[in-house]
């Protein structure tokens, strides 16, 4: 199994990290003990090669550990058997042909350790030992693949349950349209408290059954907006998150100072931040572009001396068809929207909720 994302030159975008990453993550999470074969065939130390030949043929295996008094004495592979047959030496004891220096792996190690060994050393199988060195199983590449696929499947099932939960959020509550509204007031220059609102919203979403990806995108978008209020407004502002079964709508409002040119504010790297703000780690001019990247729709209305209203929408059930963004720049306003989605029907689930790029 090639983990191509481990090559240094590979470009890892948010989207890719999610799709490839899950297999990689599982390789780091799954233990050998969970995927190995426990009922393995072993060869006794006092057996003869002739018996091994019959055993391999009958059981259709290409290798086996050699066991003496319950512990690993060596390992026999097809190559060893062939050497023996060529020498016409089938009456010999297995100890003559087995490999004594055996590379083993622990049941508590993660799958990634085994993968490293399989690729580096071209072994067909690895005997698995427990903490005390006792032989407890055999691991082949097939075992790894099967184990990862099983875990992915159970992952997928968990995902389905979560999606079901999210789409049936308000199922028992009867109304024409139900929503949960979370409201936060953000004080200006309250640096130490920055992030509380976004953290709370993120946790609430996870609690309500949103996927980790949606919760993260939402968290990041609100966090950037929250820090903007703290760092760049005289009086702070408010954040209102309205959560419905298929949509999250977030509104961030302040009463000053206003943005002179919203389209300029959307440019990555553009910032009016003071040196002080930069020293705090902010003011890189990525705030609004970061938000744009995380949400599905966004609009910014602002007037100097009056204030700014930022509205963001995240679809919880994105449409099946990928649509291109359309930008409308007009005086004092900046918008990014998708064209109206006529085909979206209730219950229709599309690709996992990542922003189409």
């Amino acid at each position, binding site marked *: 199994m090639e983990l191509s994302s481990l090559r*240094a030159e590979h470009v890892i975008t948010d989207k890719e990290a999610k799709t490839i990453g899950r297999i990689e993550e599982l390789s780091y999470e799954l233990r050998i003990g969970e995927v190995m074969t426990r009922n393995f065939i072993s060869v006794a130390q006092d057996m003869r090669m002739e018996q091994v030949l019959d055993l391999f043929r009958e059981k259709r295996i290409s290798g086996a550990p050699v066991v003496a008094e319950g512990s690993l004495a060596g390992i026999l592979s097809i190559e060893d058997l062939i050497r023996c047959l060529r020498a016409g030496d089938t009456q010999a004891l297995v100890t003559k042909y087995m490999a004594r220096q055996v590379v083993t792996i622990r049941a508590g190690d993660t799958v990634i350790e085994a993968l490293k060994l399989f690729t580096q050393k071209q072994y067909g199988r690895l005997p698995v030992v427990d903490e005390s060195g006792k032989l407890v199983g055999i691991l082949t590449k097939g075992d790894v693949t099967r184990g990862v696929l099983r875990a992915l499947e159970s992952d997928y099932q968990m995902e389905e349950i979560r999606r079901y939960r999210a789409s049936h959020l308000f199922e028992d509550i009867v109304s024409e349209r139900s929503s949960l509204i979370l409201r936060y007031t953000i004080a200006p220059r309250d640096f130490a408290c920055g992030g509380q609102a976004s953290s709370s919203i993120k946790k609430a979403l996870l609690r309500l059954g949103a996927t980790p990806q949606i919760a993260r995108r939402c968290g990041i978008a609100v966090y950037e907006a929250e820090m903007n209020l703290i760092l760049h407004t005289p009086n702070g502002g408010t954040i209102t998150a309205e959560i419905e079964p298929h949509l999250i709508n977030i509104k961030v409002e302040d009463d000053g100072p206003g943005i002179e040119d919203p389209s300029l504010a959307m440019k990555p*790297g553009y910032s009016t931040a003071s*040196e002080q703000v*930069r*020293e705090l*780690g902010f003011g*890189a001019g990525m705030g609004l572009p970061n938000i744009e990247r995380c949400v599905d729709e966004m609009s910014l209305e602002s007037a100097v001396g009056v204030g700014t209203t930022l509205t963001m929408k995240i679809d919880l059930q994105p449409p099946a068809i990928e649509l291109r963004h359309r930008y409308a720049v007009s005086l004092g306003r900046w918008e990014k929207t998708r064209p109206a989605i006529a085909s979206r029907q209730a219950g229709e689930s599309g690709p996992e909720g990542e922003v189409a790029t």
Partner: protein
Amino acid sequence: MTLVEIIEKLGLELLTDPKDFSQVVPSGGYASDLLSCVMTGAPHQGVWVTLQAHGNIVAVGALLELSAIIITGGAAPDQETIDKANHEGVTLLSTGMTTYEVVGRLWELGLRNS
């Protein structure tokens, strides 16, 4: 190690006017995106690795007579910043790699601080 080797081995892009980089031997390396940290900590004539691409980095570069500033993450300074750098004699280099990776490779090449 000369700046030429660094530019070649890391595949960096030169943004400012070319100079005889084979004569430039950096004294060490520094990584930080906070200007105040860089001003107090970066080695004189060292190489500074950062994501920051705005005009203020040139002032820091000139003040510390840095061998070069490597701007990472594909961040692009505007023309005004590049002009200022040329005027001050500060070398700006650019790369798509992350700061972590650039520093790792510099270290691998043997760039150390005395």
